[in-house]
């Protein structure tokens, strides 16, 4: 029971923090927030095969075993989210250096308001 509570609250806290940061609408906090969300979902996927302590992830003659599939799923998810984060950091950096603005919003809407401010 203690393990379940620990894992569940870890997922909850990571998701809450990730959601808060994602809503900040500046690239750096948003990317951090999405990273936290992906950590949360990785732990969630890992727990989806039920939590078993001290058992091998393989079918054998022993009575207890851990479901191996979520581990494979989580490995795929980690690799993909790692690659995606690297891509978004590069694109966001390019956009920030190019336009000196790191807010995450509709470019057309943003340029419209900027036009009104100057006139």
């Amino acid at each position, binding site marked *: 029971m203690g393990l379940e509570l620990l894992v569940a609250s870890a997922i909850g806290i990571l998701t809450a923090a990730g959601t808060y940061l*994602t809503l900040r609408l500046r*690239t750096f906090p*948003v*990317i951090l927030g*999405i990273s936290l*969300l*992906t950590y949360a*979902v*990785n732990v*969630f*996927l890992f*727990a*989806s*095969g*039920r939590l078993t302590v001290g058992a091998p992830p393989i079918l054998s003659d022993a009575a207890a075993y851990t*479901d191996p*599939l*979520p581990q494979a*799923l989580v490995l*795929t*998810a980690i690799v*993909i*989210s790692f*690659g*995606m*984060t690297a*891509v*978004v950091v590069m*694109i*966001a950096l*390019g*956009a920030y250096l*190019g*336009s000196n*603005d790191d807010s*995450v*919003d*509709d*470019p*057309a809407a*943003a*340029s419209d308001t900027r036009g009104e401010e100057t006139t």
Partner: protein
Amino acid sequence: MMHWIIAPIVLPAILAPFIVLAARHHFGIQRVFSVAGVLAQIAIALGLVWQTSDGSVILYQLGDWAAPFGIVVVGDRLSTMMVLLTAVLALFVLLYAIGSRWDERGWHFHALFQFQLMGILGAFLTGDLFNLFVFFEVLLIASYGLMIHSGGDVRLRAGVQYVLFNLIGSTLFLFALGAIYAQTGTLNMADLAQRVTLIDPADTVGIRLAAVLLLLVFAIKAAVVPLHFWLPSSYAEAPAPVAALFAIMTKVGAYAIIRVYTMIFPPELEVTADLHTTWLMPAALASLAIGMIGVLAARKLDRLVAFSVIGSMGMVMVAISMFTPEGTSAALYYIVHSTLAAGALFLIADLVRAGRANLELVAMPAVSGAALTSALFFVAAIAMAGLPPLSGFTGKLMILDAGFDTPQATWIWAVVLCSSLISVVGFARAGSVLFWKAKSVTPPDGSQPMPAPAALSYVAIGGLIALLIAHTVFAGPAYRYMANTSAQLFAPQPYIGTVLETPGKLSTPTKEEH
């Protein structure tokens, strides 16, 4: 076992690295291989469509491992039709990219294009929810590269927004997959279809959560209101050939909704019974209305086309969320129409841009080749707005007809008809300002006349429009094919049986294996 069904995924997976590694500095070789690859895709897709047209289901077990333990690739009428549609659209988009030299304005256009095709085709052919996620990621990561092809500050900023929105979508997808696996212990679609019916009615929290999360993910892909905010700026700022190829990406979301919510969570399944009528139908009607109002309100041509994509996806979703065989066949007919029309419109918008300072809907001196461009715009706009005689009109008739017997008939008819009127006004206004009023503006003295667009660009757009006309002329046979397809979708037992009962390794454990 037939190996052709895996070819649409393997072919671009080999071509793309080849183009990057061997042909990096030779645009000519890249173009030849890219076009040859897409032509081969069309040939393979035609073969697959022919093979599945009698209602048979093609199954490919990777490594010969039996489902649900192994990974499977499955082709039925719906998947093979979508594969053919993607390959055909890709050919014309590629021709336009070559004709207009968009592919030379940045690095690795052809390689990313092939990776994008691999992701899209894989998403259509996979029989496994987790692989659907993986192929979504493949098509997304290629689309991130294509979206910011040739750079520019505004395009990069639109790209950041697009990537972040999709990353959140991917996270939701994984949460849904985790919830499904925790509740059922499988992610194979056919196996899931059997297991969700066995779930104890008192213990359905996980599966209901997963059904809603999955719907959210696919609705993000399909740009259903209120999850459409990523689409207008992404599609408007993306390079024109890329935006035209993206016309099929929203359909990937529609395809996933059709597949998952006819097979795994069908309307008669009690656990998720009210999901479609309570949530999906109002959202679809709202996207139709907002998309077409956006067409009228847009101040730039590229945004106008982007909003018309939202509107036509709304139309598709209205038909899908009836979840009747008639509604689904109308939706499939409209998906083909909307993909071709949206692709053509994005390319035409690029032709207009080539002769003007920007795409704002104000009168400017006439663009080079204006007569032909305006004629193409006229035809494509008629198709997209759904006026007779083109396929938008026949598709809309089918949707109205399918919606006649549903409880929401009043809403469907009212919103479809009013939004059509609004979009007609929107397109008419844009066309008259861009092409008609342009004749009254004299170009400033000393301005150089722009060179006319390449003939290949016109060939590409003309090809898409010819297909639209063919889709109208052969609407009868096309509709019968779609009706057979949706009949197959609403009777998924042969599909499930083929996937689960085909023998493979592990299906019958023998003594020797221990």
